[in-house]
């Protein structure tokens, strides 16, 4: 066969190479030691000297031609592969994505964090206190002496017959403990678990979570309380929320209020606000002088306000939870919904 025919044959085979693997085999065959080029190179030393030069050049030309052909075919094949890939055969956009399992934070933790963040940014101390509490802190120091009706109505779990130790019925005792060791002025909140002797149903629970707040300073007024609560609601709901104060009676504040917030779920009444457009959010008031005095703070010099946020209630409100028993029920089907 003449060299020209060999080259044409080789080019034809290159053009027919169906994929990159065939092409790679072909490259080894053509350019390798025993291939077309190798044959030509092997012949060169046996040629008469004058022919060696031209033969060498011919070999180089052959190599260049084959290499160019191979590269061109490789580029063609790459283009075809890309085009085939881009056709995306077999893709089904409706096939569900595989689930990514994650963990979750309890809704009480989430709402507590949100509030703690808001209050921390306003310079409040975040305090913790015991769940098993002395009668003094839970009642006496809060202006709830023995025989006060609040002791019945708060339906207390007592830990001894003398009533010296109770499961705290609110987080307010933490404010007394704080006042005892801190010098005013101060601002603090105390989140935690509280207990009421109550049978449980969808809206009642004997164990729930609260957050007590206390500010003591000079000339603290009802206006400050309103301002603070509006700031808080802005932080929780991310928008301006109207509030209203109305009279409410709690032994450890005077005057005492119930603070209602304009319902965030409706314009003209809904199930959550029982059609009133107001949601009873928290009890609050100016700290009763007797409470300041019981904690060793001079009530003629200092005044303050206190408030009690229902964390369980807030968690239920913000997630639309309709049964309070889910909160401490430990059901994964519930917990999983609060992925972090």
């Amino acid at each position, binding site marked *: 066969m003449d060299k020209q025919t060999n080259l044409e044959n080789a080019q034809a085979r290159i053009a027919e190479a169906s994929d990159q693997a065939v092409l790679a085999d072909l490259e080894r065959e053509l350019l390798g030691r025993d291939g077309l080029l190798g044959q030509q190179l092997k012949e060169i030393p046996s040629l008469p000297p004058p022919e060696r030069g031209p033969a060498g050049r011919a070999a180089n030309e052959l190599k260049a031609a084959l290499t160019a052909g191979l590269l061109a075919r490789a580029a063609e094949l790459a283009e075809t592969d890309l085009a085939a890939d881009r056709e995306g055969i077999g893709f089904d956009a409706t096939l569900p994505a595989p689930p990514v399992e994650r963990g979750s934070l309890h809704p009480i933790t989430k709402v507590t964090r949100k509030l703690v963040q808001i209050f921390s940014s*306003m310079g409040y101390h975040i305090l913790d206190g015991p769940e098993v509490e002395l009668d003094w802190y839970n009642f006496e120091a809060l202006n709830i002496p023995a025989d006060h009706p609040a002791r019945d109505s708060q339906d207390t779990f007592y830990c001894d017959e003398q009533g010296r130790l109770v499961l705290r019925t609110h987080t307010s005792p933490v404010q007394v403990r704080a006042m005892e060791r801190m010098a005013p002025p101060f601002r603090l909140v105390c989140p935690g*678990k509280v207990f009421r002797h109550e049978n449980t149903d969808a809206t009642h629970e004997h164990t729930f979570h609260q957050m007590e707040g206390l500010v003591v300073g000079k000339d603290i007024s009802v206006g400050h309380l309103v301002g603070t609560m509006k700031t808080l609601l802005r932080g929780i709901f991310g928008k301006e929320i109207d509030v209203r*104060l*109305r009279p409410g009676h709690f032994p450890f504040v005077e005057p005492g209020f119930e603070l209602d917030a304009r319902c965030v779920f409706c314009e003209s009444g809904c199930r959550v606000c029982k059609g009133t457009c107001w949601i009873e959010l928290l009890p609050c008031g100016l700290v009763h002088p007797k409470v300041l005095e019981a904690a060793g703070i001079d009530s003629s010099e200092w005044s303050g306000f206190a408030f009690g946020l229902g964390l369980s209630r807030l968690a239920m409100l913000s997630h639309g939870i309709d049964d309070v028993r889910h909160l401490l029920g430990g059901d994964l089907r519930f917990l999983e919904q609060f992925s972090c």
Partner: protein
Amino acid sequence: MLISMRWLGRHVDLSGVDPEQLALDLTLSTAEVEGVERFAPYLSDVVVGHVLEREKHPDADKLCICKLDVGTGESLQIVCGAPNVAAGQRVAVATVGTVLPGDFKIKKSKIRGVHSVGMICSERELGLSDEHDGIWVLPGEPTTGAPVAEALGIDDWVLEIDNKSLTHRPDLWGHRGVAREVAAILDRPLLPLDTSLPELGGADPVKVLVESPACSRYIGLSIDGVGEGKTPDWMRCMLLATGQRPIDLLVDLSNFVMGDLGQPNHTFDRDQLARDGILVREAREGETLVTLDEVERKLRPADLLICSGDKAVALAGIMGGQDSKVQQGTGRLLLEVACFEPVPVRRTSARLGLRTDSSARFEKHLDPTLPLKAAGHFARLLQEFQPDVTFPASLADAGDWSDPACEVALNPDQVRRSLGVGISDEEMSALLSSIDFGVQANEKGLMVSVPSNRATKDIAIEMDLIEEVGRLYRYGNIPERHLTGALVPPPVDHRRELAESCRDLLAGGARFHETLSYSFQSDALHQMLGLDGESYVSVINPVQEGSARIRRQVLPSLLGLLEPNRRQRDEVRLFEIGKGYLPEQVSDRGEPGEVHELALVLCKARQSDTSFDEGCLARLMAVVQDLLSSLEFRELQFVAVEQAPVSWVHPVRRVELRVGSGDGACVGFVAELDPGLATPLGIDGELVSDTAVASISLDALLEQERSGGSYNPLPRYPGFKIDVAIVAPEEVPARDLSGVIEKAGKGNAKDLVVFDLFRGDQLGAGRRSLAYHLVLQSDKKTLTDKDAQSFLRRLERGLGEIGAELRS
């Protein structure tokens, strides 16, 4: 408490007042109104009918056929069974289509062959009383065809006030007290009410002896000539509107006076009273009394009794005795109006589970000047209905009481400071005067006279007056203000910070779910876990029998969640951060010791082909290890120790968790659950699971140092990866094998990881194979094949010394 607007209208002009607006006003200034409802709405649907004719039904003895005018122009034929229906009467007619209480819809009908289009109603059918012997004959001559409610002037709106918002306001337990607030809110006058006693005769009063300080005042008014009579409709409707069922004139009047002034009262048959008169004394041990509700009450010495002579006739301030019931037709009465101390009434009523309208009011601490007014009010109303009654004797008035009215100084500047609003002295005086407080300006400010009805419990100090000013001024008129002051970053609470970091790491990378549990743990759980012998803080009044104990440890609380969750999920990953209480670590003041714990459970459906690193224990150890390293605790060790951390974990598959240099300090444990607990916990059978648990003391962790560690320079020379498989006797611990590898590596064997554990016949009995990935890398030179060969030779030699070998 239910408040009738028509009733309020007896004390203050309510013309033009919208019920919803009034409810809102009261809510914002006085007490929470929870609902506003129209009284007996069906009284507006039935109309006044004029009976034109009454004929006997031809086919029924007890029925008659009536023709009525109901103002439509044509007469209506109604078949009626009442014996008292007669021509000329005005009656209440429910026409076709009207719906009566009980969802009873009036239809056209045929009764024994006679058409009837409507119904003539009895009082019971309209929900007014139990009277059903005949139809209700309307009093007077109301307009034919008009709705009965309007025609009789008994249409009404009822406000429901939340009792909880009245606990400190004894004055609001009657309509007049509420009316005083309404008058102040509307700026209308409170109408006068004559509560003076009528003329009394000169006979000796009934003797009254008060032996106990629990009765501060006892008034006895003798009444003669009481005849039978019907309570006027307006009064019966007001009682009905406020939830009181009308009974008879005396009972209705008694209830009306209580609902009007808030003062409970009681009538006795004077002829039944002992000659010694009334004795108010404490009960004797073992004494009993059958109360009006026909229940025999076992009494205790602290219970206060009203006695006729020495015989108990009423439980003071709570309920009368069965025997003291005044029979209809009794002409000679004794009206009791007394003041009882709140605490004994509350104790007795709570102990007996007997809460009445009367006890609810006495518990609020009633004004001791009120009984006299209530007696006068009762007497004047009775005289109005029965002009023949007389009051033959002077008033019995016993007890040691004093007028609680007081004076409280008010500094107007303090009002402005506390409320945060620039209200003038004159404005605050006007507000206080509007609720009958006396105000006098003096050089120091204002001197406020607090009337007795507000002074028993509510108003004693300046802040109490500030509340009065604030609520009447309306808190909504106080502008919001912002706190000012030095901004000092609050101190860091390390325990809170640690707990929060744990939550993030566990819920994040570890994919655990946070739960919160009750602090109570059941006796049954403790028995199951063998924890019965421990001492616990316990409540003496648990909600549920056998659930009185407060947990010492959090972890057991999670065990009860395994079975229900495993029913729903193949794998359960839960954690809780909470508190436990240890009664033996009691403080000087009596507070039990408090511990803070992180508890974890990992429970997974058991599989036969679980590889060595997929077991729950291994995975939970990995989670704990990762958690603590992420929290920058150094030198973490899992150590097998002799002593079990708790009695209910696997006797062998458990490790203690230690942190810190040397032996480290124990901060918790990771373990498999004892296999014997699977059945009691319900995770057996189709729910058979592997379960690992961990408990970490946050308190112990906080005592350990944390440090971010220092930077390691990046390697300067390349390394290469080698896999080695080692066959060793079972009893050679993995720690020894890794020690041999590290020794053979001469400091260059790095990133050692076990990737397989294998047992099989080809290895021989009692042997296992462990496979490792590792990297050979030096920080002094580039290692070569030759270095690898010598590493393997050294390794083979080292393994030989402990009876192990490289697996080819």
